[in-house]
């Protein structure tokens, strides 16, 4: 019985107002997600997701066993980045995901970190 919603979303395609999914919220009150904040689904909570919106359940599916950036989730779900940030904020509130923020603006990258990235690119 609760199945038709995802079907509706597909039918409506891009005409569905994306912020309807977030209950009209354009930003989460509590967290500062960035484009490259990484998200992983917490493994222990697989059974507690029955009540989730389809989009939130989809995020958990995508981030099961691997870390994805907020931007990647937005691209894979075809949703605006800010919508994904709100949904991830709710998932974090529910302890369903772990997140890793990128190094902050205040902590400039070290010479060692930059050289590691350079080595990695040379080896591509």
């Amino acid at each position, binding site marked *: 019985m609760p199945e038709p919603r995802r079907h509706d979303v597909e039918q409506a395609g891009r005409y569905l107002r994306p912020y309807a999914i977030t209950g009209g919220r354009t930003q989460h009150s509590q967290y500062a997600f960035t484009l*490259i904040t990484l998200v992983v689904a917490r493994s222990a909570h697989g059974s507690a997701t029955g009540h989730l919106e389809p989009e939130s359940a989809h995020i958990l599916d995508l981030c099961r066993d691997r870390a994805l950036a907020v931007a990647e989730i937005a691209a894979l779900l075809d949703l*605006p980045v800010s919508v994904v940030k709100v949904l991830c904020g709710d998932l974090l509130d529910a302890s369903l995901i772990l997140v890793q923020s*990128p190094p902050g603006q205040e902590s400039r990258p070290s010479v060692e970190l930059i050289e590691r990235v350079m080595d990695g690119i040379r080896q591509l």
Partner: protein
Amino acid sequence: MVSVSSEPVMPTALKILIAGGFGVGKTTMVAAVSEVPPLETEERMTEASLGVDDLSGVEGKFSTTVAMDFGRITIAPELVLYLFGTPGQDRFWFMWDDLATGALGAVVLADTRRLEASFASIDFFEARGIPFAVGVNCFHGQRDCSAEQVRAALDLDASTPVVLCDVRDRASSKQVLLSALEAARARATAERDVTYAI
């Protein structure tokens, strides 16, 4: 003691921006080095995101959608680099703080037939203090001017690397990224030395 061993290891994410005028090859460069086909995502920019106070009615509210391409390079299991191609013809990405904030460095791609298309990106990175390199995309192998001529035309600092490149070529695109990282390393080294001196 609580066991958390079942939780996956969280990597650290870094990013490099690839900017430049419309059609200069930003997405091509992302595709040349990314381990996944470039993904596209978008953000809606409103007055709120621009930090503009406007007391006029809702009907006059400014809103635009900017889209960008990006790719990913896994440097190590615990270190992931994202490459963001900035929205092409759209000047509004400059207001997208989240895109520029915390970038390791940037590449400005330039086309010698219309160098002026890269001015805005260069100004932006200089003003924000984001280290960058200029990649002169030589379509079809045409190298009709030197890196030094481009440097002079763009009025760049001596510390900003300028490299001729073909962004369709993986090795060439890697070299442009390395040049941007060299600029970042030079600045990080200078800052470290200042810190040690104090």
